[in-house]
């Protein structure tokens, strides 16, 4: 699983910039799918997000105290961690300063990592 971590969810990009990122992301995912290595994925939009804390404290959005937010994830079929890392290196998310892509194995993988 490749998890996209964004440094600052507050930054608002221009529609043009978002469109460029969208295309780059679609091309990146399409490239993985063209190798028959794509399983699935989702963007995690920020709107309508909540944070639930102990004692029924609910706050809007994951931002504020938290510096880092999750922007989405994709699941790939990789033969090794190294292959998954190679996929991750191509992610357009990495163009944003401070952003990162976390590579994690999915437990009880039926061949999926």
């Amino acid at each position, binding site marked *: 699983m490749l998890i996209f971590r964004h440094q600052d969810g507050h930054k608002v990009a221009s529609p043009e910039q978002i469109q460029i990122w969208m*295309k780059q992301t*679609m*091309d990146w995912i*399409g*490239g993985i*799918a*063209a*190798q028959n290595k*794509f399983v699935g994925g989702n963007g995690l939009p920020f709107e309508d997000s909540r944070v639930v804390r102990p004692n029924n404290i609910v706050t809007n959005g994951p931002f504020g105290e938290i510096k880092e937010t999750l922007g989405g994830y994709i699941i790939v079929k990789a033969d090794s961690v190294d292959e998954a890392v190679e996929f991750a290196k191509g992610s357009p998310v990495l163009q944003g300063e401070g952003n990162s892509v976390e590579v994690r194995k999915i437990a009880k993988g039926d061949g999926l990592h």
Partner: protein
Amino acid sequence: MKQIELIPHLFRTEYSKITAVLCKLLGFEHIEIAEDIASETFLSALETWTYKGIPENPTAWLYLVAKNKTKNYISRKNIFNGKITSQIKYSSAEKEEIEIDLSDKNIIDSQLQMLFAICHPSISTQAQIGLSLRILCGFGIDEIANAFLTNKETINKRLFRAKETLRFDKVQIEFPGHVEMNNRLETVLTTLYLLFNEGYYSESNDSVMREDLCLEAMRLTYLLIENEQTNQTKVNALFSLMCFHSSRFKARKNDHGDIILYNDQDETLWNYDLISKGVYFLHQASRGTTISKYHLEANIAYWHTIKADTREKWENILQLHNKLLQIDYSPVAALNRTYALAKANGKHEGIREAEKLRMTGNPFYFTLLGVLYTDIDNLKAKENFQMALPLAKTEADRQIIQKYIDSL
């Protein structure tokens, strides 16, 4: 010899109708009887018409003879005394006369239900296509063998086994229930899609036969559109895809039957009537909220009906392939996607992505690399084309690759 020409034509259109209606009446376990009665009807026509001339309404003549033969069969076999009486569905149980309903409505219903029976998951896709061709499209065994590039015996065996399996599984000729309908519709669409492709990409030299295969696939798909229950967006999308593809029928082969590549096609030979039909059904397909692979493929085919080599066109084709590969990977789609990527984002990126695919047993993979390297590194282009050449499976493909090499 007018009747000689007329009979094959009638055979194709009417054989399937008579078989479907009789088979529905008698039950799937008696499909061979239904087929025999239909065949005998045409034999009678051939014998009678040769001497007496073609009747005024040949179709009505055929239906009347088929009805009589069925009635004779039933009384001869004394079927009323037990064996299959319960399976004969007729409007009034007390009626002495059996109702053999060859009205348009019953023909269409019977054919549709037959389509669902044939596309049963218990038999292979190849067998489904074969049975569809035989029972629903009225193709002869030798024609089917020709389309599959095999011999009559193989096809006969395949169809026999498939019918046995359907009989054994007691497959009913009826519409599946609402829940089952969606799953089965998926299989039906796959079969129709492959049936169309069989005609479109067939190696067979018989171009009339190939076009007929495509038209039959379109006719059956259209039956699904006309039926309220099956008129779903993905069915419209598939039909749209078929319209777009078949619009290029006349332009994609020359007089010698050689394939003409898209870029060299004379677009005045494209059928614009079919293209606008494709656009219409693509609109119909976009009413829903779900996107099937047929939606994406129809959209891709739509962009290919615009010949101008614009950035916009290739960007759209690229993004559609990106989506298609996520829901339905295939090597062909992966290669086409990479070509679109090179067109939209440049050849260097295309080459980088192509080399990641590593489909080293696939002639089209090396052909694609050859095309991408052309004018960038002609030596490498040639190397790749030469890798493709021995892998090519057909003479037509070898010719195309050789043309690429010669033009370097």
